[in-house]
Each structure stands twice: as structure tokens, then as C-alpha cells.
């Protein structure tokens, strides 16, 4: 059977690549969602997000390695544990700095990210770990079921919980990533810069923006990998520059 090549490549390859773009987009969306929620309510630019994502993946690996806990329980347990860690971080550090300039939050969370990443690197090296507990039914497929509701409740306790929830989202993305990518202490810093670009493009604090631009940029990056792979790690920043020039508050952001 002869198929007409579309844009110079066969359609089945193109659609395969589009699907991959959506998968990566889902990770971007999930991580940037957590970031957007945290920024929207707490006004904190959470640079530790990548490290917490990495902790989620390592949580799943550690549970498998030492406790024999499989993928599905880990998908619940690891985010809960890392989320609880997030609550501790908020209680211990972050709640002291809400009234200060954004820069303080950025520096604090950046420092936390370096400490967390450094600890994992020290104990597990940079090459990473193999996570073998992939359920057969999950190979190649991901189920992202989210409910968006009532994020606007402004009670003080909600703040802590919001941070915990945003962090748990990062950890959940980490567990989802564990069987697909390699579980390595560097995995967080590899992805966090991109995710920040996604959040900026979507509009800081905009939940819809985070999701839409996450998927959109996943697709754009996927296509770049086919047509000009050398630029695949920069294309998102090119898009970011263009969006910021045209619409400084981001695609879905409210101008300040």
C-alpha cells in the first residue's frame, strides 16, 4: 500500500511523532499545572519543582527496590509522601517569605532544589536507576484524569495544602515518568527550565494556560525533533521569546 507522504514524511511516522509530542506535553502540562497553582495562590516561583518531580520518581523506585511496592500503589503513595514533604517545606520555610519580593522565594526554592538534587546525586550517582515495574497495560499509554475545581478558597490552611498539592502533582508526574524516562537525580533539572518556559508562555498563575501551553509546546517540540532535531531543546525558548514580545503577560495571563 502506498501512502502519500505528508510534509515529506509518511503519515504513520508523523502521527507517531504527534502522539509523542502529546505525551511529553502531558508531562509539561502536569508540572506546569502544579507550578501555576503554587504561583497563583502563594505567589511563590517554585524552583524546587523539578527536584520534587525527581523525588516522586525516586520514591517509586525506592518503594519497588526496598519494599516491593508496585507501580499502582506507588502512583498514590509516592505523591502523598512527597506532598507531605512539601507541606513540611512550606511550614518550615516558605510561609515566612510570602510578603517579600518574588526573588526571595525563587532563591530559597532554588537552594532547596540544589540541596535535594545534591543529596540524591551523592547517594545514587548521576547515571540513574532502572525502574522495571511497568504494568503491561500502561505501555505507551497515559491516563491523565484531573478535576479542576474550587482553587480560589482563601483560608490560611489552604495555602499549606496548596503547596502540598502542587508538589504532589510534581511527584505524580515523577512516578509517571519513572518507567518512561530514566530515574536519575538530574531528571528534575533537565525538565524544570522547560516547564518554567511553559508556565511563562501560558501566563503565570493561569491554570488553563499551563495545560494548553503544556500540550501545545509538547507538540511543537515533537515536530522540531522530526524536522530540525538540533533545535529541539531550544524551540520552546524561541516560542517563549515570541510570546513575550507579542503578549508580555503570556497567552492566558492577566496583564498586571
Amino acid at each position: 500500500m502506498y501512502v502519500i507522504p505528508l510534509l515529506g514524511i509518511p503519515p504513520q511516522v508523523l502521527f507517531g511523532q504527534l502522539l509523542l509530542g502529546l505525551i511529553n506535553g502531558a508531562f509539561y502540562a502536569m508540572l506546569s499545572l502544579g507550578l501555576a497553582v503554587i504561583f497563583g495562590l502563594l505567589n511563590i516561583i517554585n524552583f524546587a519543582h523539578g527536584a520534587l518531580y525527581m523525588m516522586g520518581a525516586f520514591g517509586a523506585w525506592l518503594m519497588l527496590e526496598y519494599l516491593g511496592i508496585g507501580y499502582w500503589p506507588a502512583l498514590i503513595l509516592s505523591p502523598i509522601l512527597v506532598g507531605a514533604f512539601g507541606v513540611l517545606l512550606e511550614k518550615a520555610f516558605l510561609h515566612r517569605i510570602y510578603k517579600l519580593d518574588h526573588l526571595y522565594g525563587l532563591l530559597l526554592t532554588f537552594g532547596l532544589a540544589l540541596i535535594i538534587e545534591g543529596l540524591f546525586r551523592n547517594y545514587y550517582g548521576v547515571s540513574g536507576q532502572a525502574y522495571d515495574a511497568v504494568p503491561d497495560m500502561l505501555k505507551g499509554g497515559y491516563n491523565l484524569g484531573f478535576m479542576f475545581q474550587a482553587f480560589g478558597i482563601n483560608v490560611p490552611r489552604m495555602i499549606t495544602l496548596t503547596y502540598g498539592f502542587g508538589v504532589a502533582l510534581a511527584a505524580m508526574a515523577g512516578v509517571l515518568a519513572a518507567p518512561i524516562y530514566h530515574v536519575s537525580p538530574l531528571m528534575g533539572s533537565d525538565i524544570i527550565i522547560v516547564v518554567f518556559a511553559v508556565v511563562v508562555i501560558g501566563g503565570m498563575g493561569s491554570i488553563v494556560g499551563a495545560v494548553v501551553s503544556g500540550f501545545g509546546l509538547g507538540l511543537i517540540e515533537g515536530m522540531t525533533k522530526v524536522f530540525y532535531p538540533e533545535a529541539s531543546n531550544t524551540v520552546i525558548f524561541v516560542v517563549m521569546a515570541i510570546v513575550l514580545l507579542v503578549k508580555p503577560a503570556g497567552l492566558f495571563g492577566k496583564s498586571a
Partner: protein
Amino acid sequence: MRLQGISALLAATALASGLTMSAAMADTIKLGVLDDMSGVYTDLSGPGAVDAVKMAVEDAGGSINGNKIEVVSADHQNKPDVGTGIARQWYDQDHVDAIFDVANSGVALAVQEVAREKHKIVMFSGPGSSDITNSKCSPVGVHWTYDTYGLAKGTGGAITKSGGDSWFFITADYAFGQALERDTAAVVTADGGKVLGEVRAPLSTPDFSSFLLQAQASKAKVIGLANAGGDTVTSIKQAAEFGIVSGGQKLAGLLVFLSDINSLGLKTAQGLQLTESFYWDQNDETRAFSKRFFERNKKEPTMVQAGDYGAVKHYLEAVKAVGSTDPDKVMAAMRAAPINDFMTKNGKLREDGKVVRDMYLFEVKKPEESKGPWDYYKLVRSIPAAEVTRPVEESACPLLKKG
């Protein structure tokens, strides 16, 4: 773009300024280990490389003719500008006599130029680009452990000859990956194979699935991975998930280190053929060294770390023989003496800086063949030095022509 980049830079600056103060002591022989301490190549060189250098210094008695031997180290962060900055500071202000390792070909080629300009010795163990001793060769640069020419001949040649005659490359988009792809493509074509295409992936790509699908669609019999470290690990792992190997295509890891196999696990890595110049479990001598290394570092040494030991040993013996750290005298002595240690047998340092040595083609064991942790390779064949060294007549290095 790494987060730790900033902190590492601060640490390097702090380290460097600390060194300046202690540098004034005259009669110390100072060795600098410049490698990747925090990025994708940390496990294959990193702190283990520094310790291998220290082991060689300890074995030399810690001093030569009453002159103390000192070891300093720094993180080049896989950035040529950071690497050359440290190299300049070491050579100019800190009185470092020779620099070792320099994992990452991009950094290595830049440091090669600094060493040439300052006329100081640099001995590469970590980087792979064969350009280091070809068009970019230097009278004071030594390429000790392996190069892309040898890898291409070893792994590329073996696979092409056993029927893998059409190739698609997934290449790390910088000096090393491009050199490895070029050298391997030459071997494939020379042995009657065809190259169907290639894709250039940026260094430290977290997701190779797109590139793997392109490789799959090319219908090539062999997918050549012209990358290293974390990139190789990710591509092999994801290739297993996409069922590329079970679908009939063969993966050729053109540069795979022991640390990569340890991270992948035998279930994923089994059957992979690879070329190295050292494996810890080759004979009593390699086992003896590796046992010592293991006790100190809690892991078996890679060929890069073992090579660092050998390079420092050979350097210090030359310094002792000529009673000086003068680069020209030491280079001449290193060229004159045959290289013999636990890893290298009858090696020779050629005029272009290449260490002429045997390499080994290994195959990764199946999980049931392995007796335990780190029991990963079985020897397929020893490859004589002549097969894995660029012949003098094919070399573009002017240093080989003048004699």
C-alpha cells in the same frame, strides 16, 4: 542550563582561589584532574577519576626525589569556556604541571589548545574524539584510553561484518558524537555497508523516543548510538520500551561504559556489544587494582578511571627518569618508554599523542549468566592495536610527517 551549574561555578571559583594561596610552594609536582563532577559523565569519570589519580600518586610514594606530589581537581561542567578558564588558571597561576582526564571532547579540544599555547602537558582519558590526535594533535597532548576511531573499528566493524550492513545513527550533537558518527560511518562503508540516515540529538536529551521512532522508520538493520553516558542509557532504555530490538533492529552502543550497564541493568542491556580498553574482571592484575578501587569508591572502575591511573603512573615515571617536570623532556621520556601496567600491555605513545594499545570487544551477559553485581561482560575478542589505531598514512597530524 543546569541548576547546579551556578553552584558548581561558585564552588570552582572558591576552590580555585583557595589554590592560588597554596600555589607558591616551589618544589611540588602538581597534577590537575579536570572532569565532569556533576553532569552526565560524573559516574564514568568524576570523583572516581580523582581517586584513581590519587592512587597512582600514592603508589609512586607521594613524592619524587623529595618533591611532594599534589593533586587538585575541578568541575568543567561540560562547558569548554569553564574548562579553559580553569586550565589557564592552573597552568598560569597555580603551577599545575599536567592536567588529566578532561571527559567531554568539546572541553578536551578547547583545553588541548590552552595546553599547546602554554606548552604544558595534558593527558586525556575521558574524551573520545579522534580529532585530538588527528587534525588537532599537539606535541604536549596525550590521548590515553580510547578514541572514536578505535570504537568505530571495534564495535562498528564487528557488527557490519556479522551482517548489520545498513545503519541509522542517533548522534550527540557536539564534537564527540559527530566524530564517532563520522568514524563509524567510514568503517561501515568500507566494509560494504550503507548509512541510511542520522539524527542529531542535543546533549543530555531527557527523551529519545522521537529519535528512536525516526530510526525505526528508517528500516535500518542497525541503530548506531553515537552518544555517551546518560544519553546512551536513556536511548537504550527507551529503545527497549519501544520494542525496537524485539522488532528485529539491532542496537549498537558505540561508546558504552561499565557504569552505563550498571545503571541499565542486564535485563535491558543484555546482548549489547561494546568496545573498551579495560574491564575490571579481565585477569588477576585488573582484579587486584579494581579490588583496591572498589574498597575506596564502592564501585568497579570504568576504563576512563583505570586509564587515569595508568596515565599518571607513566607521567610520574617519566618525571622520575628525567628528574624534571620540563614538558619536552617528560614527553620525550614518555614516548621512549613502553607502557606496561595492569591495564596496558606493551602500549606505546606515538608522536601524534595517541597511545597505541589493544582494545577488547565485549558482549553484555544475560541476567542468568551473571554471578552478581558488576559481573556484566564476556570477552568476544581482543582487538590488536594495529586494527584500532589510525594508520600513520591516513593521519592528518603534521607531527607524524616530519620524521
